[in-house]
């Protein structure tokens, strides 16, 4: 447990009047409130510290005790004195705490000085919503191709979730009621799961469309033919038109990624041809190319 300087947290000096404390708290709370800084863990931590500092310094009794024992809290005798106060004089402010706040969010230092925030006797049995929790799931592109069930362990509880096919990289889904437990009968918070989907070595995804490139030999490009290409769910045969140009694209309708929560719908697969010029030609091949060159109409 490190000593926490509540005055420093609020940016005020030790002689600050109650009004100054209130103003400093308001100013910082507006800056770091979790509702104003979604997904910012640092802001949440800062807000908890600010809240904690305000809980103590805005209450004359607690402030007096903090001023008296705060710096020397580690000394056993004084620590014991502080312990005697647990549960007696806490929580008269009566203001609402953020929905993301709970007793567990207060520092060890705070609890050792004043007792657990939740047990300290808020004057009213106000219901608080549990805090929202965040989790991240890593998938590869093939995993995201089909709906799948996964079991997560959150706060010791196992949650079985179905990940719909077509989930996007960076997309967040909300599992209602699986966040932190509510306080005083308040509702549970929600669990937010963000998906991180790794790139595929050969196939890129953009929305519901997929993009890939294939090498095409010169002869097939010129004369046309049939090739087999890899897709995320197996190989498909593809007819190549005669006189296909380098970097030209073809679209395979419906061979892209499944559309999120739209069963049976899928994007398209775009295939770019990279035409490979033959190397290490034999004399006969060179002669044939020369003949071909001579026979072609030059501009």
């Amino acid at each position, binding site marked *: 447990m490190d000593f926490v300087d509540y005055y420093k947290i609020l940016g005020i000096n030790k002689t600050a009047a109650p009004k100054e404390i209130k103003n400093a708290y*308001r100013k910082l*709370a*507006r800056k770091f*409130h979790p*509702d*104003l800084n*979604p*997904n910012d863990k640092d802001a949440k931590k800062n807000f908890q510290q600010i809240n904690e500092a305000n809980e103590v310094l805005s209450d004359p009794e607690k402030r007096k005790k903090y001023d008296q024992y705060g710096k020397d809290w580690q000394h056993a005798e004084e620590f014991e004195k502080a312990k005697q106060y647990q549960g007696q004089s806490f929580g008269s402010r009566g*203001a*609402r*705490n*953020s*929905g993301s706040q709970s007793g567990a969010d207060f520092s060890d230092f705070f609890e050792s000085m004043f007792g657990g925030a939740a047990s300290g006797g808020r004057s*009213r049995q*106000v*219901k608080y*919503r549990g805090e929202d929790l965040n989790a991240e799931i890593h998938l590869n592109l093939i995993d995201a191709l089909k709906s799948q069930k996964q079991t997560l362990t959150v706060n010791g509880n196992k949650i079985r979730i179905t990940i719909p096919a077509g989930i*996007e*990289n*960076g*997309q967040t889904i909300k599992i209602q009621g699986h966040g932190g437990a509510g306080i005083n009968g308040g509702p549970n918070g929600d669990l937010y799961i963000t998906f991180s989907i*790794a*790139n*595929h*070595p*050969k196939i*890129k*995804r*953009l*929305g519901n469309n997929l*993009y890939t490139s294939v090498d095409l030999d010169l002869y097939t490009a010129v004369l046309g033919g049939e090739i087999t290409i890899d897709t995320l769910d197996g190989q498909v045969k593809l007819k190549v038109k005669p006189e296909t140009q380098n970097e030209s694209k073809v679209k395979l309708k419906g061979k892209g990624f499944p559309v999120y929560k739209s069963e049976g719908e899928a994007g398209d697969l775009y295939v770019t041809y990279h035409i490979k010029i033959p190397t290490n030609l034999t004399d006969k091949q060179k002669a044939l190319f020369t003949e071909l060159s001579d026979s072609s109409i030059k501009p």
Partner: protein
Amino acid sequence: MQIANHIAIDEFCSSWNIEVSFINSLQETGLIEVVIVNETACIEVTQLQQLEKCIRFYYELDINLEGIETIMHLLQRMNNMQNDINDLRNKLRLFERSET
């Protein structure tokens, strides 16, 4: 307290110890929608999160209704921009070297 997917405003206000007039003001500014179910003014459960956020802004941070309206608008824009960033990041991945 709960009527299907709705919560009676009177009971919600009593539970949160807030004035019904505050909910009415939020409705007037269009921040929440109040519906009448069985002759009782209610809010939809899906709006609870938004409503609780407004309550925290008003009572914890002393932000007035005009401020809340502005903040909610900006938060919505932030959210949209975050989604745009995700889309752009995914587009950028098209041009990154493939992982091996």
